[in-house]
């Protein structure tokens, strides 16, 4: 995970190893930390981290954590790491700043806590020109601000350079070390590693295995099929095109006292099968009625209409389907729907009102 990537780039991390069975822990030599390997922050607070000062404690900690449930997730792996004598904790990260269209360096001498809780006056932030990248002068600005002594400052700048390489070469949205520990022996070491990659770059990082603990099983299924899909807690299934229009559809439904079951953005598609498969996902969420809201551009009205007709047949849909079609090929699309006995509306508001009504009537 994060630390393996750090190791690859030469960022110092504590010595350690991962086990899946408590029987696999190595012989105890010095105090260790046993950390459950889950993709969640705050695992320390949730009891996911144990300390061990003997062979028995080490084995016991691994036994206790493996198979335990932490915030709903089962621990299948634990990391056994040398305990470090902490003198001080720092914070450092590179992250995308969207409005600046640039990476930002954030660093603070007050690490080990959430950076949001650190006073602004103690945080160094600096925009990085992506064409120039990170250079040592930026590190000198940061270490001066943080008032680091010469030895620590030199190590800090070395880590900054390597961390920026991770950010850039691994296509990251965020790389964060919190805490970056200064040991009693005067060494900087990354006690935690957070690496969030840009999912749009996965085509050039084929070795990446994606999991997202925040997503529901249906959301993960949708993601694997290429749909932007979010489960909500209402009863009206929604299929629309474009993230903005899909969000506006949910807003309008909600303001009309309708309760959306999901967000599903078809994206720009010109493929009947993509439309039909979207119905499969929405049907699995078991809504009372389905609203399709399409403003055709890249996505053409006749393609969507054919997809709806195909889905109705293939999945034997009996639930009410309310369709709104506008834009490119809307006339052709509406005719296809009419021939198949499906009503469609030219405006979003008519369709919203109609679907709220039928969802209220449906049992």
């Amino acid at each position, binding site marked *: 995970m994060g630390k393996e990537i750090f190791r690859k780039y030469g960022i110092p991390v504590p010595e350690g190893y991962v086990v899946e069975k408590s029987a696999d822990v190595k012989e105890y030599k010095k105090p260790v930390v046993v950390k459950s390997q889950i993709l969640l922050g705050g695992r320390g607070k949730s009891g996911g981290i144990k300390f061990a000062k003997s062979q028995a404690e080490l084995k016991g900690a691994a036994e206790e954590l493996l198979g335990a449930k932490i915030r709903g997730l089962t621990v299948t792996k634990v990391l056994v790491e040398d305990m470090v004598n902490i003198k001080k904790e720092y914070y450092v990260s590179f992250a995308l700043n969207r409005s600046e269209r640039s990476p930002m360096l954030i660093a603070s001498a007050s690490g080990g806590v959430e950076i949001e809780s650190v006073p602004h006056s103690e945080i160094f932030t600096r925009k990085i020109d992506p064409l120039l990248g990170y250079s040592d002068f930026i590190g000198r600005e940061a270490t001066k601000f943080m008032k680091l002594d010469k030895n620590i400052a030199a190590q800090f700048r070395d880590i900054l350079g390597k961390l920026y390489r991770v950010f850039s070469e691994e296509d990251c949205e965020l790389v964060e070390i919190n805490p970056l520990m200064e040991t009693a022996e005067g060494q900087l070491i990354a006690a935690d590693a957070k690496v969030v990659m840009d999912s749009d770059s996965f085509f050039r990082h084929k070795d990446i295995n994606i999991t997202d603990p925040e997503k529901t099983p249906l959301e993960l299924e949708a993601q694997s099929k290429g749909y932007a899909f979010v489960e909500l807690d209402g009863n009206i299934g929604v299929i629309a095109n474009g*993230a903005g229009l*899909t969000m506006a559809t949910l807003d309008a439904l909600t303001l009309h006292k309708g309760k959306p079951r999901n967000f599903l953005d078809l994206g720009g598609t010109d493929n009947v099968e993509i439309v039909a498969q979207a119905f499969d996902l929405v049907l699995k969420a078991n809504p009372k009625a389905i609203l399709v809201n399409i403003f055709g551009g890249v996505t053409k009205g006749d393609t969507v209409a054919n997809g709806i007709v195909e889905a109705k047949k293939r999945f034997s849909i009996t639930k009410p389907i309310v369709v709104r079609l506008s834009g490119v090929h809307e006339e052709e699309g509406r005719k296809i729907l009419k021939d198949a006995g499906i009503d469609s509306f030219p405006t979003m508001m008519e369709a919203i009102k109609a679907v709220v009504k039928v969802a209220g009537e449906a049992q």
Partner: protein
Amino acid sequence: MTVLVDKNTKVIVQGITGHQGSFHAGEMLKFGTRIVAGTSPGKGGTKFQDKVPIVDSVSEAMAFEPDATMISVAAPFVRDAAFEAIDNGLKLVYILTEKVPFHDSMEIVHEAKLRGITVMGPNGPGITVPGECKIGIMPNQIFRQGDVAVASRSGTLTYEIVDHITRSGLGESAVIGLGGDPVVGLTYIDVLKLFEADERTKKIVLVGEIGGNNEELAAKYIKEHVKKKVVAYITGRSAPPGKRMGHAGAIIEKGVGTAESKIKAFEEAGVKVAEFPDDVPGLLK
């Protein structure tokens, strides 16, 4: 010239033989856009729709003296295509493609800025100036020439709002989509500057969405610098925190980027905020 483009703007399409590229190049020709050439490496020497010359590279396309390009190639090839356009000195680079790695987009956007080149997108619908020129994928039939300029992060929601403006009897002076990818070329402030300077534009519609603080920055700019009437619509009011609503930026994190905050910022800047897309024309009148 009107906003960024007019009827004299000469356009090339990079990736003109692809599925999207060919369809939208055809629609742009119907709109009246002057497409002077298309590129498709290896297919040079042929013609698109028997009239638009196809060449192998942007360098060859420069013989037709283009001003702008539409890039419609797969995401892994966008960086190369955009650099090719920038290196050849095209002044307006529109990227249709979505899900471009943002590290690539950062380089494209910053290099373009150094050279005074405008980048639209990635993942936006492009620009339309009714009666003059369309570069992008907006449906042709929803426009009418008028004095309302529209800027939005999204595609289809823009069409929805433009459609309401046109049906109400008003018309548009320019419609620009910034793009839904994490890093895009234009900001609301860039576009507000263009709209404020444009003689045809009398009123402005900003379509915003949850996430980030671009709408708040725009509201501040409007308060200080924009004299024309501005109306806004914000989408994502019903979105639960922590869930990314399709667009890369559309997520409420730690209470930042909520619809309430954006609506409040606009109202404090004297901008009326529509509750539904079809309320926009009423607020413009």
